[in-house]
Every structure is written in C-alpha cells, then in structure tokens.
C-alpha cells in the first residue's frame, strides 16, 4: 500500500510539471495585460514601460525559466494588478471554495443515497418513478436557473434566507443546495442502478435467507459493494467543485476560486492564473489518490501492488 502511494506520488511530478508548462504557454498565447494596465491617454512609451515593469519585454524562454524556478519553490510572483503575492490571493479564496464544495457534497449525499436506496428497494413502484423523475429534473435544470428561482422564493418572497454573499451558515444554504441538487441526482441514478445489480446477487439472497433485517442486508452487504462507481464519480465531481462552480458563485456572489480564475484570465493576471491552476491541479490529483485508496476500504478484494 505504502509502495503504491509513493509510486503514485512520483508519477505526479511529471504531471504537475506538464501543468505548469501548459498554463504558462496558454496564458502567454492570449496576450499580455499591459494594454489593460495602462490608463486611457497613455502613450506608446507608457505601454512599453509597463511591459518592462511587468518583465514581459524579456525573451519568453527567460520568462519561463524564471517562472519555473520560482514556481517549484511555491512562489508564483505577485499579481500584476494588486502587487500582492499570487499565492496569498489564491489561498484566501480556498476556504470559501472548500466550504461550498463540501456543503453541496453533503447535500448530495444526504439526499441522494437514501433516495437511491428507496428507489432500488421499491423498484418500479410509484415512489421509484417519482424519485427518478425528480432526479431527471435535477440533472436537467441549469444551475443558474435553479439558483435564481430559489433566490426568488426563499430570498425575495419568503425572506427566509439571505440572497447573496458569504457570512454565516444561512448564507451557505442556497448556493449549496443549488450545487448539490444536480450532484444528488447523479448520485441517485448511479447508485440505484448499481444497487439493483447487487441486490440480485446470490450473497444478498443468502444474507436475507439467514434472516437478517432488510436494513442490515442493504446497508451492510449491498450498499458497500454498490458504492464503488459512486465514489469514483463523487471524487471527480468534488474535484470539479473545488475548481470552482463559477456559475453558482456568480449568481450568489460567493467569493470562491472559480470566479477568481475567470477574472484573472480576463485581466491577464498571469501570476494569479498560474498559481490557481497549480493549486487546483494538486487538489484534483490528491482527490484522485484518495478515491483510489477508498476502493480498497470498500472492497478488500482490491489490492495495491
């Protein structure tokens, strides 16, 4: 197991180097921020001077070398716009992003797993049909629309919940539910299918024949085996959520990483874009690793050699 983890970690080195190279090239291809940073009325000299200040007048390979050397030490430079360290700009957004991602994951799991179990147990019943229909809605609804509708109902009409911004627990509810609903729907559909497969297995029938309660059969025997594809999917979704749910963040004015990245790209603020993409790559890779290790816990037949 330890050997497996070390091997995986070593494999990440080229991946992360690749990420650095790609993000550097992409940002430099789309043009530099000097044109945005100069003030209206500036002259050609001002423009050239701005490029000098930002170090963009140096040869591209030299810029890349400096970037790489610093990035490997965790230093992505300072934002062109605010003169603040890119790393601290990105890190101050991470808590908000993580908070929203885990809250919506919680919503998805708390609602999705029981719904899937119910649907699988009462297969083809009215309940199953209702749950399936609801999850179809959940998957199909665009998050910005659902978000605005919930804002209208709970924020404007009923005035139960704050409309936007980040603050206490109450601020988290609307964005978390908005994001959680589509994920919940995916969890429900995937888990129901896998549960149905597992429930028809011999060992489940054996367990029931032994006289175990339905609850024990489902939760102890069937669910654990049916969860693996769902765990994979949740890992990928969580990676995406941590990358920022730009639309939901925008609708609810949530100060997350996704919006920072989008704004920094529009501003051509290379240091912030580089740093954010790097952090996201690390997070994504780490989640993948955790998911792989979870397989072994859920299904002891899986070995890491």
């Amino acid at each position: 197991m330890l050997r497996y983890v070390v091997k995986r970690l070593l494999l990440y080195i080229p991946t992360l180097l690749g990420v650095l190279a790609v993000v550097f090239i992409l940002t430099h291809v789309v043009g530099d921020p000097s044109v945005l940073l100069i003030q209206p009325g500036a002259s050609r000299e001002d423009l050239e001077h701005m490029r000098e200040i930002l170090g963009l007048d140096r040869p591209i390979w030299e810029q890349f070398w400096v970037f790489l050397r610093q990035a490997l030490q965790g230093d992505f430079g300072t934002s062109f716009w605010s003169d603040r360290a890119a790393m601290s700009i990105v890190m101050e957004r991470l808590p908000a992003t993580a908070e929203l991602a885990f809250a919506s994951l919680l919503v998805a799991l708390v609602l999705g797993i029981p719904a899937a179990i119910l649907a699988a147990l009462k297969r083809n019943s009215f309940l199953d049909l209702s749950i399936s229909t609801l999850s179809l809605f959940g998957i199909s609804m665009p998050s910005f629309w659902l978000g605005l509708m919930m804002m209208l109902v709970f924020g404007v009409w009923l005035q139960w919940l704050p409309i936007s911004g980040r603050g206490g627990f109450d601020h988290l509810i609307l964005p978390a539910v908005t994001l959680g609903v589509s994920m919940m729907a995916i969890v429900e559909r995937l888990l129901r299918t896998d549960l149905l497969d597992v429930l028809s297995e011999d060992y489940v029938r054996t367990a029931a024949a032994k006289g175990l309660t339905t609850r024990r059969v489902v939760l102890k025997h069937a669910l654990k085996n049916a969860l693996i594809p769902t765990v994979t999917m949740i890992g990928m979704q969580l990676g995406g959520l941590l990358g920022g749910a730009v639309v939901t963040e925008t609708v609810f004015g949530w100060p997350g990483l996704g919006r920072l990245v989008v704004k920094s790209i529009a501003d051509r603020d290379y240091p912030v874009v580089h740093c954010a993409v790097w952090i996201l790559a690390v997070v994504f890779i780490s989640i993948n690793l955790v998911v792989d290790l979870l397989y072994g816990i859920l299904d002891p037949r899986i070995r890491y050699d």
Partner: protein
Amino acid sequence: MRVVRLTLGVLFAVSTAVLLCAVPSFGAEPGEITVAQSGFGAHLDPHRGYGDNAHVLQSIYDGLTRLDAEGNLLPGLAESWEQLTPGTMRFHLRQGVTFHNGDELTAEVVKLNVDRMMSPSEPRQAYSFKFTGCTVVDKYTVDITASPADPLFANKISYMGIAAATLCGYPKSDQFAKTPIGTGPFKFVEWVADQRIVLVANDAYWRGAPEVRKITYRVIPELSTQISELATGGVDIVMGIPSEFVPQVQASGIVRVVPMMSTVNRVVVFRCDQPDSPLAKREVRQAINHAVNVDLIIEQILGGYAHREATVCHPTDFGFNPNVAPYSYDPNKAKELLAAAGYPNGFTVDFDYNPTSGTSGPKLTDVAQTIVADLAQVGIKANLVAYDQAAMSSRVYKARNVSPVFDFGWKTWYNDPGDTFYGLFHSQSIYAYTNNAEIDSLIIAGRAEMDRDKAREIYGKIQELLFVEAPALFLWYVDDLYAISNRINWTPRVDGRIYLYDATFY
C-alpha cells in the same frame, strides 16, 4: 420500511436544522448605506488610477482640488492656487487638516505624494503631462511643476488623492490595500476579498462629519442578484441597471431609478490610415453615418436611455458647438455618396467589437448587429468579430492590427473634450487611426491654449471638422441608470463616482 422511516427522519432533522439556523437580517441599519458592485479593483492606491475602486478611493482620499457633482472646480486640500509659470502651480494648503491616522497635512506630505507619482519603476496614473518636480515653499505652501504645461492642471490633479506620509514610502500598491490612509470623509475599516469593503464616517473631516455613518461596498457579480437584493433592502445603490429592468426595479416600491447622462461616448471608429481601404475616402465614412438609424437603435435597443452625439463632445463640455447637428438617417444619400466614392455596389469589411465593454454591455451585440443590418441595406457587408477586452485593447493600441471598423468608447473627464479629441483622433495617439494634419494641429493648439476663450473657438472648429471628415460613426452618450433606495437622498455625479459625503437620509 425502517429504511424509509430512517430516511424521512434524517430529511426532517436536516431541514429543521437548516430553518432554525437561518435567522438572516434584512433591511438596512439607520445611517448605513450598502452599495452593490459587480467586482472590486485590485488596489486602493490613489496614485495608480482609480479604476474599479474609484468610489472607495474618492471616499478615503482628497485631492488638492476637487470637482463638484457637475464637474466644477473647487478648492480641496488646497485653499487656493496660482499659476507661477505655465508649467508651475503654487498651492496654498488648508491648515489644520488631519489624516485618518492623526498626522497633519503639510507641504512635505504633498511632496512625498508627488515624488511617488514620479517614481519611474511602477505603474502610475497617466496624465497628458508628466510631473517634473515639487518644491516645499513653507509648511503650507508647495510648488508643483509638470510638463507640458496644461491649462487643466488644477482640474486634473483633483483625482490624485493625497495619501499619508507613512504610505508614500511604499513603491508598490499592496500596503495601500491593507491600510489606506487619506484625509477623506470616510475611513477604511476592512476589505474582505471579493466580498466587501467597509468604510466608516470620519468625524474629524475638514468639511464637517458626513451624515452617512457607514458604507459597505458589496461584490454582487450577477445583475439579477443585485436586483433581488435591492428589492429586499439588502443593498441601497446599484449603478448600471439595464433599461429593460427599470420597471421591475421601480415596482419594488422601495427603490427609484435615476438616469444620469454619462460622459462616455460610443463610436464606431474607421481606420483612415490604410490608403487602399474604402474607408480612406471621406464620402464612404459620411455614407456610413447616413446609413445607420442611430435614433431607432437608441429607442428600440437602449430603451431611450441614450443621447445622440454629433461628434465626440458632450453637451455640458467646455467648447461644445451646438451648431453641429448629428447626421440624418438617409440611406439614399448614403448610396449616392458610396457611388460617388466609386463603390456603387458597396464593399465588404471586418467589424471588431467587444460585447462586454461599457455600461450598455450586454446590448452591444444587439447594437452591433443592427448596425451591420443597416449597412447591408446600402450594400456594405460588415463581418462582425467579437473580442474580449484584453484582446480588443491589444488589437487597437498595441499590435494595432484592428479591423478597418471597430467599436470604441471614450470617457471625457473634467468637462473638457481636449483629451478625448486627442485620444481618439490625433495621429500620434496610440488609440487613433486618423491622419488629418488640420485636425492634428487644432487639437494640439486647443489643448495647450491657456486663453480659454481661444480654446473654446478651436474646440468648436474641431467639431465642425470631425463632422465633415467623419473619422467615426458617431453614436451616443448612454444614461447610466442608478437604482437608489427611497430612504436615501442622493443624486449621481457627472463623473460616475458614487461619492456619498453629501448623501442624507429621508
């Protein structure tokens, strides 16, 4: 069945917990104002250009001079000033003014600010002049020199905030974001990234304590969300409401919409610098001005919230020439002009635009498409190409490879069109694509003319010439639509700054 019960139990528990925890506060506190913005700028450095944090910067910092809501020049931190030589201005500072940290405003502090403006290695606010020196005469008198001499020097430095001496030692902007210290009517409390900036009243303000006790600037990127917040009293002021939302906002009953004619002109610029291009011919450029039904676009797409321009001079600008009337909509005349220029069957041309620029942002696509349709009526086939702000800027003034026709806008400051004329139409400006020796010399003469009566005459001539030469399709000045809570007594300013020192409560 137990699973069902268990599930329902969990659901009930979770939803109850959610509702019990949710005890939000609605409505604003007395004396407090919340302003919604789609995003913040990156810094609070008054020497770097005010940008997206202009409202905040202007509340924290004062300039040596100041402009009132209509743009009239008034004394600021300097009680008076006099022109010593064309390039040198002497300022007599107001005595007894203190910064938010208790330091006194002296000539020495002003010098530190000007010196910081002059530091060559950092991005600073660009002016049509460069600061060349600053001399302390006595504790409350300071001489500032700049080159070239600018008749509007006193107006222009009104937006150069004077920061406390402790800040001037930092060449970079980062410290300013943590502890901005000025002499302004509001003091900085906190800046939570991408969420809010909070200011409180400066009771020691030299013009008297403001009635507004606290201002919160909140980031709310999505317009629909801003409007929902307005309707529930979560925010008090929103700038840039699209015209189609006006009835909905007014319907809330707690908010009014106030239009304020902006000083940003909208133009579609023609590249006159390519001799082989049809646009090098004056008749073609005039034809386009006749071919587009600008009034109809204002009425149908902008909801009537825009004012037609004859050239790029705002009606309240110094030197506005009322004798120059906008082009008439006349497709037949356009066709005649095209035929006279040698293009009886029209021509094909690329048309660059940025769908997200300007306050009428989302509608610029509709506007551009309507212009294309109007041009097609007279035989000109225009291919629309969209670029984002950075790409468009780079094409216009860095790579200078923008298409022969492109959408552009320019904000006029200090009620003086001189810099606008220069920026858009002087051959040496990096933003301009006009090569007209007469226009060039008039612009230079008008901008430098210390005798303002003569300058007025020159500006009048420039407008006549721009009208005839038609280096652009002249469109409009939009109205900025402000939604303002009915509990607040405040009128928007001509410069578009949400400056709440003079706001009061009903």
